[in-house]
């Protein structure tokens, strides 16, 4: 099945939740389950599907890369309100937020606000 490669970055302290690695290169399927669960096999997806979008990516990161403390990353099936998501250096709100369909080579950044001075 077709897959795409994307770059995922964490910044502003969020990297601490992801094994303290800021940069992750991922290859994910381009067709994914509509309920956002990570399928056991790329070949067989039971039930409805959709093109891979940012909402799926958030669930995928939680289920596959997150090392600790789910509640610090997600809330109500999306990122918690203190986290800003950037799609290719643009605020995700300008790109359709979670419904943005990922493309090969996309650069997705999750950033938490810094408050130190």
């Amino acid at each position, binding site marked *: 099945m077709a897959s795409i490669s994307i770059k995922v970055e964490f*910044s*502003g*302290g969020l990297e*601490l939740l992801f094994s303290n690695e*800021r940069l992750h290169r991922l290859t994910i399927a381009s067709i994914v389950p509509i309920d956002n669960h990570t399928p056991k096999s790329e070949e067989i997806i039971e039930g409805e599907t959709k093109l891979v979008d940012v909402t799926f990516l958030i669930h995928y990161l939680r289920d596959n890369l997150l090392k600790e403390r789910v*509640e*610090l990353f997600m809330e109500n099936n999306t990122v*918690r*309100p*203190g986290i*800003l998501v*950037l799609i290719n*250096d*643009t*605020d995700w*709100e*300008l790109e359709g937020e979670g419904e943005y369909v990922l493309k090969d080579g996309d650069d997705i950044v999750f*950033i*938490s*606000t*810094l*408050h*130190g*001075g």
Partner: protein
Amino acid sequence: MQALKRGNSRLAVDTITVAVTAENALSLLAPYDIILDCTDNAPTRYLLSDTAVTLGKPLVSGAAQKYDGQLCTYNLGPDGPCYRCLFPSPPPRESMASCEETGVLGAVTGIIGNMQALEAIKIITGLHDGKPSLLLFSALGSPCFRSIKLRSRKPSCTACGSKAYDRSIMLGTDYIQFCGGVHPDWEQQGLTIGDASHRINVNDFKGILNSGRPINLLDVRPKTEFGICQLPSSINIPLKQFLMNPKEYLPSDPQIETYIVCRLGNDSQIAAETLRRVEGVGAVKDIIGGLKAWSRHVDTAFPIY
């Protein structure tokens, strides 16, 4: 201030040495055209943003921690977003360490501070393009700088949105509670006396070291901190590693007492408490106030960091 005057003798500088609060923020900041947020904590950042919105002034906000910096001008022009548009709620309390705890590279604050000054100058002189953007700096990133195109003001924002009719968010907000409560004073907490059979003060511990009797002394700080300074005969087992298998670090002879030390006396309590739950363990004590107390009361030449 004298340094500023040397650079430009025609500057008028007002120095106000009071803490900004929800009660005085509006009157303190009303006389000025631009607000620069150079503060170091989340409650003040939300307070300054709400103040900027209420007064209708741009807020040039700079932040730095460890190797990273962020620079953003909020509430710029008729539809620039405010801090709450982007970050409606603060990060969880436990994920917000202060600069004192995590450190910040001086050069990073210098870069962000300079960029902040530049941003303010652009606004004053009319050279700013008025578009909202967020600048992210990471000393270790490649590239170091990235500029992010931002949304405009969020209609649903509780501070500046169209639904925030009465603009009275400041009156009803306890900023410290909103950001998860008062920042814990780790040094003070590390000094809590607690159960005498569980904790020992640095002077008594000094006596035990001097007596020369064999003890098991564990230092649970991170490896780098242990590298800076350590007590003689102490063994470094970073807390995370320690908690994975505390039994492994017990002395083979149960008669030998175990003492645990850290920087301020908090992590050592966690380690000691965990160890006490292990079956067949001998005496386990942690050192009150950690190495900072050691330096203060026993050996003033011992480094404080």
